[in-house]
């Protein structure tokens, strides 16, 4: 499908190249494109379905052929009939309200004859074992279900290739495993290219692998299965113990049972459980009930109220901010708007805010979602630094490899919090399975 020779790419406003000297031939089969954040894999992805260079005015040099024709000879939307795409974020790739309307949207774009549409919809849903979803409202589906629908919307156009951009980033381990198995079954006849910084989740799905490092191809050959990144437990020294009580909470669709959380100063706590089991709701309740708890939301940007970094740090108190600002490496950005920072910087600013407001417990909601290993290592360092300083850190996560750093565990299942557990939790197969935490590979 793709033939690239000495392909380079840069954004118009930047001098440095995102992709350099890429020579690559993508052939039939299942290909993995991997690499860290900023390695250029998402840029390469957007060149493959011709969203780039058109939509970013990027500058391409070298040869790039899609289906034996140069990329610039295609009209807008033309190549997309032969390449189906699934994006990372389940919440921002749909246009219509229901699954059926969404599928029809693709068919309308491809000018399929009207009387053929309904049969096509029925056929694809049956093939993908999704018939029950036909009349469902997309907004009400879970993340995993949305990704399946996104695959259906891509495949209904009968593409020759299917591209997926980190489709598992927002899914929990159990849902991820199920999605991979399902895709393995349904994608028998279509060629697949998947961007993924964590190939471990895909088991033996691929037959070829391309690794990018700093915009260059570092490896191109058969797929080598390898273990996930590993994090080792942090040694903690516990201080005084506190008890937090979280009251019962009843919502329309969901009930959170009352729970107790025992917290020692300097402890590192992980809260695990399925998507939708109530972890985030519980965390919000905890923060609402207790002044000493500082919540860092999944997107730290939600926390920011003011329009520059130093004012943000100084908000709501009179303590000096200089020391903490410099320790977190935010000094050079003191006058920048908090929303203009990178994700890592935003997270550090959020932590700075928590440190300055004298919170005893810093609670992170899903800090690992969509993060690559480098970013996780940075998060790890930040957390360790905090517990060494005597604060307690708690985090909610789906990332079982990262969760290993914790010293104490709590599990959430349909609104019920159980725990504390220690690291021996990882040997309790049944308990893990009941909470959707068991990967079949491990």
């Amino acid at each position, binding site marked *: 499908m793709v033939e690239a020779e000495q392909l380079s790419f840069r954004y118009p406003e930047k001098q440095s190249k995102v992709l350099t000297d890429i020579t690559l031939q993508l052939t039939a089969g299942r290909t993995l494109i991997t690499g860290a954040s900023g390695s250029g894999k998402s840029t390469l992805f957007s060149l493959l379905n011709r969203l780039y260079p058109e939509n970013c005015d990027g500058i391409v040099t070298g040869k790039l052929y899609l289906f034996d024709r140069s990329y610039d000879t295609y009209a807008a939307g033309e190549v997309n009939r032969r390449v189906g795409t699934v994006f990372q974020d389940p*919440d921002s790739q749909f246009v219509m309200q229901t699954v059926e309307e969404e599928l029809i949207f693709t068919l309308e774009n491809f000018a399929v004859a009207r009387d053929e549409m309904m049969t096509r919809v029925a056929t694809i849903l049956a093939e993908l074992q999704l018939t029950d979803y036909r009349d469902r409202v997309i907004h009400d589906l879970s993340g995993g279900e949305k990704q399946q629908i996104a695959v259906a919307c891509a495949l209904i156009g009968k593409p020759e290739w299917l591209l997926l951009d980190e489709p598992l980033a927002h899914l929990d381990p159990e849902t991820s495993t199920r999605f991979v198995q399902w895709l393995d079954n349904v994608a028998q006849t279509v060629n697949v290219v998947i961007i993924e910084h964590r190939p471990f989740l895909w088991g033996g799905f691929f037959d070829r692998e391309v690794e990018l490092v700093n915009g260059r191809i570092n490896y191109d050959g058969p797929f080598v299965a390898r273990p996930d990144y590993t994090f080792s437990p942090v040694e903690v020294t516990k201080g005084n113990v506190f008890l937090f009580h979280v009251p019962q909470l009843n919502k329309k669709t969901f009930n959170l049972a009352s729970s107790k959380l025992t917290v020692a100063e300097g402890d590192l706590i992980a809260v695990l459980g399925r998507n939708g089991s109530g972890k985030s709701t519980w965390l919000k309740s905890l923060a609402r009930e207790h002044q000493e708890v500082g919540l860092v939301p999944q997107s730290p940007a939600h926390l920011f109220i003011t329009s520059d970094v130093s004012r943000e740090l100084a908000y709501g108190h009179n303590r000096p901010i200089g020391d903490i600002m410099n320790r977190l490496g935010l000094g050079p950005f003191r006058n920048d708007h908090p929303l203009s920072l990178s994700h890592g910087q935003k997270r550090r600013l959020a932590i700075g805010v928590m440190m300055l*407001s004298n919170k005893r417990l810093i609670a992170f909601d899903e800090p690992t979602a969509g993060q690559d290993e480098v970013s996780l290592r940075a998060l790890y360092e930040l957390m360790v630094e905090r517990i060494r300083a005597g604060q307690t850190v708690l985090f909610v996560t789906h990332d079982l490899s990262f969760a290993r750093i914790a010293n104490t565990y709590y599990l959430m299942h349909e609104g019920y919090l159980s725990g504390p557990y220690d690291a021996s939790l990882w040997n309790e197969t049944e308990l893990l399975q009941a909470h959707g935490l068991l990967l079949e590979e491990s």
Partner: protein
Amino acid sequence: MTFQEMNPTIKFMTVTLLMFGLAFMYNPWTPLAVFIGTLILQILFSNVNWKRWGLFMVPFLFTALGTLWTTLVFGKETSGEVMFTLFGNDVTVENVILAATLSLRVLAFTALSLLFTLTTDPKRFVYSLMQQGKLSPKIAYSVFVGFRFFPILKHELMQLYETHALRGVRLETRLDHIRHVPNLIIPLLAGSIRQAERIAFSMEARGFTGEPRATYEVVAITRNDFLLASLLIVLFGVSVWIGI
């Protein structure tokens, strides 16, 4: 034959035409006749939830009463026969007619608008605008995406309020919430722009170019559409005649 089934573009054009015409009628009887006639047509040819209708009507009823009151009390001094005295102001016949005209016009406008809004499915209206009104798919589908954005934006807004409350922003009363809105606009916009860009990419990747495309949902024009449109126009004609 109901207003629900009526072609939305034709319905929109007819209703707009009537409103435009009403603006030139300076007597109280025409708007009154249009108001009553619209209600009768709505009862005959549609299946409207009258409780909702009533709720929507309430604010406009107040507007109408307000118009009546202010025109009576603060109306221009006119010569003519004085009908009665209100708070020391002489109210003439001319004053009363003018006040009734204005307030009945408000009511007639509202009845016509509600006839349209309460019997029109927004999705069908956009489809129809695309098919009969030659609206560009680019604009039409922006509207569809907009529909999807509402729940997402609402969710995002709630999250912002929650986290800001946790940071110690005073958000106890409704007034506190309203006062805090200016601080939320930038984060909300930043989030929305990112989302919008992602959706745009996703649409293009699925072959949407804004060029003419196939349509599954055909919103046809039938004989009934013209019948209903003529009924409305006849109603207007009769109302004008009553006014003269």
